[in-house]
């Protein structure tokens, strides 16, 4: 069920099959990111793969002393490029792997192009998705739905990605989907169709309890992607943006050249792997420990590391250290930047109100807090909009709804038109009318008691009180209590036992907060393995662009204050 491992195994197998000798990896745009998520350059260099080329790049030289490993999606364009390539081969021998099912006719036209007999292997290896974490995958698709229905090209890509995932994990699942969502139903049907058509491929050894594929729709929980996150991975993604494990730091003031773009991959960065699910304060102290550890080894400098600024200076003063622990300097930079952004944008305060909006039902206090923050000049228009969006979603039908007043406040704050439009767009997207289940008010007695108890106990951490709706859904699913009415099975058969292997797919994208939730569920529930997937991995920016209103938001960080804040000041756990 480890998706990273599944893809990695495919890639390793390809490289192994081609035997010894210098190799070039020929990929297309998508497979490049698929491979880069599971293999680092140095790792793959050790396997004698020295060049990485795009099949469509024109600037390739003939190098007959190289073996070519082609890992391609079976698209029309790729097949055409490959035909051209085979007619005039640039490399001595070709090992061709398609990341999904390829048609017989394409195979034939490729075969006919291979007049020089350079192709040694043609296979389908189903690594057709981006493996983010061992239990999280994404398809990197944005804007997969037009309004309430699928964009057809995206639908087929999503179905391909999902079936490839099933094949790579060797699972032939039963399928459940969210009834309230038309796209979920369509996708479920498409996947089923592929399984039926390629029944030979899906003929795996039967397990006692069949695996389960649950297809959900983002519109059912539009809240989660709008919240500020405080765990490392989620926070990095929310504030800096992670794209195929890469983070662009070029906007960070005074960034050194080699840190413009850094790679955060749990596969080969131990610190990241250990800390990606910890909250910000813990990471601050972990980094501090790490650095102090190093300092102890250099007893000359009895310098105390009080703040992230100190740490940064420390790192810069020790080029040696920099070399030794590129990882640490990377994380110091990232955490420093996060901390800077957090204070600059007043995120702690914002986040507190966000959490209140998401988790509590006290309208007047929420309204008051939102208004107060809207007055605060430090709060960016982006965050302000977000607050109003949350308010709009939560108190959509509240008797004393004062959304118009808040909209006026937004306008007064100078928030641009395109942002203000988002508020109505989000209600359109994930408002009560659309939602299949109730996000905010608990439905049954148990849930009410739970919330009551929670209120009594007080909240442990105001910044992380929100529990994604997905948790509830999965919890019920594991206990076998998920209602067939809301999440029907596709086809006549139903699952009688507790499910063991679960694949959840969220149309419209998953979030890192949900990834954390699934991670914790995996850790705490014996005998259950859950893999989470989405058309993309969200942050607020992507969520907003999903709404079709804003392509990608740019907020100019350089104009804002550049003081580096003490990490000690950030204490989400109060």
């Amino acid at each position, binding site marked *: 069920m480890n998706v990273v491992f599944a893809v990695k*195994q495919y890639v390793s197998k390809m490289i192994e099959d081609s035997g010894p000798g*210098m190799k070039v990896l020929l990929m297309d745009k998508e497979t490049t990111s698929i491979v880069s998520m599971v293999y680092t350059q140095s790792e793959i260099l050790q396997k004698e793969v020295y060049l990485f080329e795009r099949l469509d790049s024109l600037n390739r030289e003939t190098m007959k002393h*190289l073996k070519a490993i082609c890992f391609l999606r079976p698209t029309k364009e790729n097949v055409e490029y490959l035909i051209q390539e085979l007619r005039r081969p640039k490399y001595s021998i070709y090992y061709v792997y398609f990341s999904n099912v390829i048609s017989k006719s394409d*195979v034939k036209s490729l075969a006919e192009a291979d007049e*020089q007999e350079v192709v040694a292997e043609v296979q389908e290896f189903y690594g057709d998705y981006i493996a983010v974490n061992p239990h999280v995958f994404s398809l990197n698709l944005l804007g997969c739905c037009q309004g309430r229905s699928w964009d057809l090209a995206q639908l087929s890509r999503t179905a391909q990605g999902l079936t490839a995932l099933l094949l790579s994990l060797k699972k032939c699942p039963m399928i459940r989907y969210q009834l309230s969502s038309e796209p979920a139903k369509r996708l479920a049907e498409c996947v089923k169709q592929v399984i039926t058509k390629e029944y030979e491929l899906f003929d795996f050894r039967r397990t006692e309890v069949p695996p389960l594929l649950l297809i959900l729709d983002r519109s059912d929980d539009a809240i989660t992607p709008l919240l500020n996150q405080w765990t490392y991975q989620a926070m990095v993604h929310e504030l800096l943006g992670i794209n195929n494990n890469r983070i662009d730091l070029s906007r960070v003031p005074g960034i050194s050249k080699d840190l413009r773009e850094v790679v955060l991959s749990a596969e080969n960065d131990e610190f990241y792997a250990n800390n990606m699910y910890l909250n910000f304060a813990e990471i601050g102290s972990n980094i501090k420990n790490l650095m102090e550890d190093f300092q102890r080894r250099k007893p000359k400098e009895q310098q105390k590391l009080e703040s992230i600024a100190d740490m940064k200076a420390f790192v810069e003063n020790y080029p040696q250290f920099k070399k030794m622990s590129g990882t640490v300097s990377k994380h110091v930079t990232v955490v420093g930047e996060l901390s800077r952004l957090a204070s600059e944008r007043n995120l702690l305060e914002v986040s507190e109100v966000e959490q209140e909006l998401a988790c509590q039902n006290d309208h007047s206090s929420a309204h008051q807090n939102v208004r107060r923050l809207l007055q605060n000049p430090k709060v960016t228009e982006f965050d302000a909009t977000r607050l109003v969006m949350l308010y709009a979603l939560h108190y959509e039908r509240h008797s004393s709804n004062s959304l118009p007043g808040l909209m006026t406040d937004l306008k007064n704050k100078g928030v641009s038109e395109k942002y203000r439009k988002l508020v109505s767009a989000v209600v359109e997207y994930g408002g009560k009318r659309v939602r299949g289940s109730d996000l905010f008010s608990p439905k049954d007695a148990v849930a009410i008691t739970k919330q009551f108890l929670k209120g009594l106990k007080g909240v442990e951490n105001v910044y992380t009180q929100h529990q994604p709706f997905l948790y509830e859904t999965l919890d019920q699913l594991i206990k076998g209590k998920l209602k067939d009415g809301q999440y029907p099975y596709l086809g006549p058969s139903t699952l009688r036992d507790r499910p063991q292997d679960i694949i959840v797919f969220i149309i419209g994208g998953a979030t890192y907060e949900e990834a954390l939730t699934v991670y914790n569920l995996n850790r705490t529930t014996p005998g259950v393995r859950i893999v989470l997937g989405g058309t993309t991995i969200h942050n607020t920016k992507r969520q907003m662009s999903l709404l079709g209103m804003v392509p990608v938001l740019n907020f100019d960080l350089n104009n804002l204050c550049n003081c580096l804040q003490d990490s000690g000041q950030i204490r989400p756990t109060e």
Partner: protein
Amino acid sequence: MASNYPPPFDDPVEVREGFLCPLCLKDLQSFYQLQSHYEEEHSSEDRDVKGQLRNLVQKAKKAKKKLLKQGGDDRTDTGAQERYESFSYGGVDPYMWEPQELGAMRSHLSDFKKHRAARIDHYVVEVNKLIIRLEKLTSFDRTNTESAKIRAIEKSVVPWVNDQDVPFCPDCGNKFSIRNRRHHCRLCGSIMCKKCMELVSLPLASKLTSASKEALASHTSPNSSPNSIHGSRRGSISSVSSVSSVLDEKDDDRIRCCRHCKDTLLKREQQIDEREYTPDIVKLYEKLRLCMEKVDQKAPEYIKMAESLNVGETTYNLEHANDLRVEVQKVYELIDALSKKILTLGLNEEPQPHPKTLQLQRMIRYSATLFVQEKLLGLMSLPTKDKYEELTEKRKQEIDRKLHMERQATLEMQRRLEEKQKDLVSRSTGAPNGEVPYPKRVSVKKSEGWLPTSSLPRQREIADPLLQQIDNITSFIKQAKAANRLDEVRMLQENLRQLQDEYDQQQTLKAIELSKRQAEEEEMQREQLQVLREKEWERELHKAVSQHSRTRSLDFREVKQHQHESGKENLNQIAQSLDLDTTQLKSSPSSKTPSPDAVQKQVTKENSVFPIKPREAPQYIRETDQNQTVLLNPFEDEADTSPVENDPANTLAGDSSQVVSLPTKARHRDKKEYNPFEDDEEDQQTNGATVCAPNPFEDNGNPFQKPVNDQNSGNPSEGLSSTNPFEVDDNEISGEDIIEEELLLQQIDNIKAYIFDAKHSGRMDEVEVLTENLKELKRTLAKQKEKSKC
């Protein structure tokens, strides 16, 4: 804790209850008092003791760990433990999900090949056709033939397409006219305009034809140098450029053809070129890979050596390791040099190589650097000669110290158990306060425990065939070194390493087994004590004798138990005890001669112990042989346990007074001791021995072990031998073969005597058991005879 396990050794009369300390049996009024007492009095004592009483399983684990450390093997399962901790929540961290098999895949290769084969046939035919025609066109002397004649020949090679059929150039679509004349391809006969016409120069043609000829004749590649390729290429280019000037003149040195034919021919040429040409980078790269493989091979070997040397082990030779180090370093330098060469390939040439080529070179260099960095960092340094000697010395001391510590620990344990035992003894004899020790006894044991230390390592090594082998190999290595055969030395060292690993492993297994057995034994003891209590009233009747023998037997059990723990010393202790035994017997001739029972006992005991040993401990047996022969008198008389041989290891001093008086007593006791309850008790013990010590003898049904046990269960040396971990493993196979006929006969006689005795005192069930034993013995004897005949 104590309330859960009321000490089993209470006073036989009153079963004591309450908060008794498990170690000293002091009655403490409350749990809390007990706890504080325990912490105060016994906190300094080994944790293992607590563990024994608390949790058998836990104790087994600890013993294993302890023994693991003794074997110098620290590869304990801490890693596994840590891993378990990550499962603590009940679920599994996705990073820890068990490895999965490779995902589904589907091959289209056969389909692909099928389609390709169809296509390729067609293509090959086409190319061959062109080549054959080309050959025909160039087979005559073109320069000295008239153009008309050439034309005729050309027309005969391939039928030309009719002019009228082609009004437009099929390639560019221009209309043919007087100015735009038609041209025929000499290779396929098709028509094109002048612009679309291509030319094949004669050198190219000859190259193509000769290559295919050679390829047909033999598969040796033609010897054309890169220069000739360039020449031919240039030739073709120049001929193209000269086209404009020569226009429609006689084709002396070239052949007209269409674009398609030319394409095919050029592809063909390229193929030929590539077949012959290996670029420098490939050659260098192959060398580089070879070096890397060499490093992969040698480095681990070296690291193993260096590690071993750095802790002062003597498995490997220092000079030797140094040689290897130099060798590996040289390979690294070579890798560095080669990759640098690759990096700079073609940099000085004009024109500069393609950027991709440069990138490739950079990447190769980068990966080579990574490789060297990674591996070179792991290449630890070796100690200098002096340092090494120092290390060796240190390690030696360390080992000695460890051994010393172990001994002490064992001793401590022994002492403690002793005390405990004493307590019991004093209790059973009615002493009100069991805490008063018998100083005399303790001191005796101490000295006894110390004795074997000096000779321990040596004997232990010899006892195990693996160790013997290791010794052998070490000496081989020395010899080989003397003979200066380094290859052999290396091989032998590797061998030695493996042997040591194997030995370590065995030790571990033994340790585990040992601890298990210990646990069982303890269980047994408890049961026995229960029985003891039940028999209490009977004891009252035979107070003097029975009390004595019972305490003794208890004593032995205890000793046995802790001696299990120090399994390694067993051999020594046997030797020791035997020595003591015999000397004692010798020193008191009065006891020796008048008490044939004692000697007989000794004989049987030794017989039972030693026949199994000759394989592993030849020297040792030689030592003891003397004793044996002295003692091996075929005494007919049957006797029961007498304190002397019963307890040589333990209670010599304490018993010495008894020894003197024994001769007279012994015979009386013959009958006395065969009273029912006493016997029952001993039976029990026998059972105990069989259960708790899964000794190969007993398990294999070694026929004379049981009867001996009947008498000897309390004999420490026997208990030792049966649980000696070395023997347990090594004898399993050989155990039965070694039984000697003589011994069997002897034993049969013994048993007959037992039966007689038992019948006399009317213990029918025992008679039954014994008869069965007798039958078994006879059967074995028969078998043995058969074997020896064979």
